[in-house]
């Protein structure tokens, strides 16, 4: 018969009231766990979407290339570096990519574009581009003399599948780089800048045309998980082969991305705090009622010699038991729900198409993590604790005689 049991029994003195209170907390906990998992999940999707479309989780570049994409700022022996990177734990894919500014010309029109040299078989694992091909097909290993072209650029140059286009630019050494390509695929990413001014060719073609020798502009590393990025970075930094190179992580490669997520998270957290405060006020009433209807009992307890602090502790224990039950139940249900939907995914209906355009999955998958499972319940716990404190702290003011007299 510990105080705990006493408190637990007190909780169930008015089962209906306690149940409703617990339900309110369960509701808040379920919602917080699920929504936070959902938010974190979508952040990971966002990171992955960006990462897939362009940056990768990590990149190795020549110093200065990130600020000014000049042809000659290359990672010299790129293939050799790939062999160094691939065995590192947590690395799921290493792709080489080069890019150059060049003049693309169709029959009548010309336009300055960015040409990407990619390794199709490796990019395929990380890029959303194959899914965004609206006409024709994606590049394949061994392709030669063929190009993928953005849909807006295609319209502008009046090109379609099977048409020839020419490309004129400058090689790494400044010499003239020119080539003739047959269009085999047209993509729409939904990002106008990409669709309007980019062309993709194979890495091998690029190397040949732009006299890159063994070099590449970017070594793009994709990690298994976001958490692997730091250890991979450390592994690279300690490797002498990378000493003269720059290692950049996704948040530096896409600076707006992190802030955009922070912004979203903060607005989310404001919403959650409002929610929790509303729940807390609902709960506060229960706590107060439980306190007032037992004033006389507290008088008896004080009379027989219980110290006020003990009673405060007892009341807090009761409230917290209620809260804990709610939070525990809610967290469990929330986790269950999250796990279910993390397999099932949540469809956004019509919105899905919109998202797909931007390289997102048309289904969202909430992702359970320690953070998403604990953050909401912890917030709930803290706020309800302070809520419970309000009535509990009235005990020391209680005079036994008055308490005994109250009905």
């Amino acid at each position, binding site marked *: 018969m510990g105080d705990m049991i*006493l408190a637990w029994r007190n909780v169930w003195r008015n089962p209906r009231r306690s149940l409703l209170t617990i339900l309110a907390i369960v509701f808040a906990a379920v919602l917080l766990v699920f929504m936070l998992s959902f938010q974190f999940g979508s952040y990971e999707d966002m990171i992955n979407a960006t990462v897939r479309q362009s940056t990768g989780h990590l990149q190795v570049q020549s110093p200065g290339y990130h600020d000014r994409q000049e042809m000659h700022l290359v990672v010299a022996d790129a293939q050799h570096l790939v062999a160094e990177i691939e065995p590192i734990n947590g690395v799921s894919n290493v792709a080489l990519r080069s890019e150059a500014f060049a003049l693309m010309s169709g029959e009548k029109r010309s336009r300055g574009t960015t040409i990407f040299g990619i390794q199709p078989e490796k990019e395929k694992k990380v890029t959303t581009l194959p899914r965004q091909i609206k006409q024709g097909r994606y590049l394949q290993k061994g392709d030669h003399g063929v190009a993928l072209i953005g849909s807006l650029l295609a319209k502008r140059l009046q090109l379609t599948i099977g048409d020839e286009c020419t490309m004129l630019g400058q090689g790494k050494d400044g010499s003239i780089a020119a080539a003739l390509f047959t269009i085999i695929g047209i993509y729409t990413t939904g990002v106008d800048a990409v669709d309007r001014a980019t062309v993709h060719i194979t890495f091998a073609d690029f190397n040949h045309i732009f006299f890159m020798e063994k070099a590449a502009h970017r070594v793009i590393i994709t990690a298994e998980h976001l958490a692997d990025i730091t250890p991979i970075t450390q592994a690279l930094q300690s490797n002498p082969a990378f000493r003269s190179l720059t290692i950049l992580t996704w948040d530096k490669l896409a600076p707006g991305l992190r802030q955009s997520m922070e912004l979203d998270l903060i607005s989310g957290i404001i919403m959650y705090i409002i929610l929790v405060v509303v729940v807390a006020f609902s709960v506060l009433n229960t706590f107060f009622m439980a306190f007032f209807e037992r004033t006389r*009992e507290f008088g*008896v307890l*004080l*009379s*027989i*010699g219980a*110290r006020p602090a003990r009673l405060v502790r007892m009341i807090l224990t009761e409230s917290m038991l209620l809260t804990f039950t709610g939070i525990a139940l809610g967290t469990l249900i929330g986790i269950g729900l999250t796990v279910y939907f993390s397999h099932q995914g949540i469809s956004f209906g019509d919105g899905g198409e919109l998202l797909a355009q931007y390289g997102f999955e048309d289904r969202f998958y909430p992702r359970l993590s320690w953070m998403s499972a604990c953050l909401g319940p912890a917030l709930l716990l803290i706020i309800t604790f302070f809520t419970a404190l309000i009535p509990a702290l009235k005990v020391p003011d209680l*005079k036994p005689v008055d308490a*005994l007299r109250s009905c």
Partner: protein
Amino acid sequence: MAIVTVNNVSRIYHQGKTEFKALDDVSLTINKGEFTALAGPSGSGKTTLLNLIGGIDTADKGTILLDGQDLSSLKKGELADLRLQDIGFVFQSFNLIPVLTAAENVEYILRLQKIPSSIRRQKVKAILADVGLADKADQRPSELSGGQQQRIAVARAVVASPAIVLADEPTANLDSVTGQKLLDLMQQMNTDKQVTFVFATHDKMVMDYARRVITLKDGRIADDIRK
């Protein structure tokens, strides 16, 4: 030997602007082993006096010594400890904690005293047997009759061997047969274990049982009769 010494105690209640002297310069002494009743009509100040002796109310004037200790010199926490160690309470009604069983209610005070659980259990068992409710140990107060509840209250009051047990109208909500049984029990405690009892009551039966009856009137001692 004096357990309680009340010296020139006054207690004034304020109700709005009007003053009400519940106790007016009262002095008395209660010795160990006494079985005393504070009598008088409603508002005569008997409950106030009982509360003052029990340390759950404080005097405006005068001193109260309990077991030689001046109650007014004690802080809130010390007062609570004093009540815990030296005083047992029995109230008119709603005495027990509804969520605890009979045994647990009795045991609770021992827990507060931090007495080891083995000793606790023995003591509770013994005292429940003494009050004749050994078979009701695991019942909740709501499952007990009024008389049984008061017996448990008595058990709780005496289980920690306090210097004095204060009972405020313990028989008020009982029928006369049950009330008598309760008084028998307390009398037995008094004779067998030398527990000192002080009652605040206007029940004639209690006064009959008492060996000393102090009658209060308008906050003053009108009469003090030892039988």
